[in-house]
């Protein structure tokens, strides 16, 4: 017997692949457009289903941008009280619209705000949701959405289905799917939906740009071409300073393993791996890192991997392009010196 708390639904009433389109100021975030591309692909596999988008307090210009990127229909939640983001009010409004239009699949970009909204929306719709999917497919037999995500610390890839509930929901991180080309000849329908908020329970009081960078003004790990990361093998925060120097010389940034974060040598924003960031730099340098699967899953997209470790048999060394056998305390100062010489510093 299905759970008595699940409202009865008629699966056949649900159709279309819809996407939540998050705003940033007065434009749409790329992740929503990326998901529209994926939605088109899924819709085609479903035999030509409709692709929809939902924008909260957006403009027609934004809706047109969504149409140019693959949407057939865009719903703008039209309520001036929702101009400013607040989690519970946004989640309720979006859930209400999804409830009305009944898409078969509803996708949300796993930005920080998206990860905040998605689980609430799923729960409000009494359906399942899979977080941080890295692939989405359609099962040709059942037409179910196959929600694929790394799990158990990245050791496995799980395929998850939502067989009994609709919509089938998934969140997907920025950059996982490519942004589709913009086609200004595409046409679609724009609908304004009045959605009232029953009661305002959260209010934004103030917003401030954070000025301080977490580590010595270095860029975030997701966006750098060179990432120098350290693990427990560094032995101290002092060791981490060498990595910062190397990263600066190479025009890159620093990352860390969970062990290094837990030791307090780097903030959690620097964590690479299953519970941290997935990166695709040109060069990844792993210093004092054993290469647990949970860490490796975050760096498999790196073009070149150099590992430095006295033990050549740890997975990080065995999964490197260049495995440097040795103590980083001997290698790094020499390397820094040589690079400085080359750069004439």
């Amino acid at each position, binding site marked *: 017997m299905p759970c008595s708390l699940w409202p009865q639904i008629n699966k056949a009433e649900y159709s279309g692949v819809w996407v939540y389109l998050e705003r940033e100021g007065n434009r749409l975030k790329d992740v929503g457009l990326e998901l529209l591309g994926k939605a088109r692909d899924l819709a085609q596999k479903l035999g030509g289903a409709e692709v929809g988008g939902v924008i909260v307090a957006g403009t027609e210009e934004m809706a047109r941008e969504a149409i140019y990127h693959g949407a057939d229909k865009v719903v703008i939640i039209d309520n001036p009280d929702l101009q400013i983001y607040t989690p519970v009010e946004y989640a309720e409004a979006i859930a209400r619209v999804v409830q009305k239009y009944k898409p078969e699949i509803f996708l949300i970009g796993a930005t920080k705000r998206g990860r905040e909204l998605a*689980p609430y929306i799923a729960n409000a719709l009494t359906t399942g949701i899979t977080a941080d999917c890295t692939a989405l497919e359609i099962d040709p037999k059942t037409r179910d959405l196959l929600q694929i995500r790394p799990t158990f610390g990245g050791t496995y890839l799980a395929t998850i289905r939502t067989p009994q509930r609709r919509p089938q929901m998934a969140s997907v991180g920025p950059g996982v799917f490519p942004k589709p080309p913009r086609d200004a000849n595409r046409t679609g329908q724009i609908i304004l939906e009045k959605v009232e908020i029953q009661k305002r329970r959260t209010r934004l009081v103030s917003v401030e740009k954070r000025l301080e960078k977490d580590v010595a003004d270095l860029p975030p790990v997701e966006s750098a071409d060179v990432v120098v990361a350290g693990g427990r093998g560094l032995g101290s925060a002092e060791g981490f300073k060498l990595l910062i120097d190397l990263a600066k010389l190479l025009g890159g940034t620093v990352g860390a393993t969970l062990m290094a974060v837990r030791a307090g040598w780097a903030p959690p924003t620097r964590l690479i791996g299953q519970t941290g960031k997935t990166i695709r730099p040109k060069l990844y340098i792993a210093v004092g890192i054993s290469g647990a699967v949970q860490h490796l899953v975050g760096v498999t997209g790196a073009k070149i991997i150099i590992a430095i470790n006295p033990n050549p048999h740890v997975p990080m060394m065995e999964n490197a392009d260049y495995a440097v056998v040795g103590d980083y305390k001997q290698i790094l100062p020499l390397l820094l010196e040589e690079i400085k010489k080359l750069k004439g510093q």
Partner: protein
Amino acid sequence: MKIVVLTKAAVPLSPSLVKIDPETGTLVREGVPLTSNVWDRDAVELALKLKDKYSGEVIALSMAPPSGIPALESLIGMGVDRAILVSDKAFAGADTWATAHVLAKTIEKYVPDYDLIVTGEETIDSATAHIGAQTANWLGVPYVYYVYDAEVRNKTLIVRRFLEDEGIDETYEVEMPAVISVLKGSQVPREVRLSRKLNAREYIQVVSNKELGLDPDCVGLRGSPTVVAGMAPATYPPRKKIVLQGEPTEVVKKLIQILREEGIL
């Protein structure tokens, strides 16, 4: 202030302990020594700070098999007043919908007069960041994620939070009761006091579905809208696997050459 901290007894940081039930595709948690989710210590710390300031009670709540008890003991060692372990074979294999269901019903029954629910940002072994928002929805209360600081003003909660991807701080006013999830790494969790931890077991109440009386079709694997359909080991792309060893000066020379060939220098 009555504060409930949701905390997961997670599978510890060792791949050898990660085992999958071949039938259900879910993580085997029975018989594995579980430890409290590392990011939940930030949640406990923020809750204890609020208690230090406004007095009241901090109650840890966890849905886990009995092997989750040591994890709760260490949180009591940190200063949590008492803990509730909801544990029943029927709860095994729950997805986040079914987990939040049990947690919310436990709160409604055992801590109905709560002011605040605090969660960690995400768990180390699931990393969905679902439970906080879903529990808020079950209980019909507002919520805010990524909080690093909170205070009470005129019975409303003022929270400060950080959105890492946009690089901005936001301050919200939230009606209580509410759910907040605490930014991972934002607190310096206090030490576990051994003297407190030693007799912590006395402060742990174990609750099963006999007491909660939830429909067995709405908990655990059966009550989960999502189903694990397959599980494949993650694979890695091939690497050159060139080993460099010997005199550090020689090795560094080779490294420089490689950095040039690869177009880095």
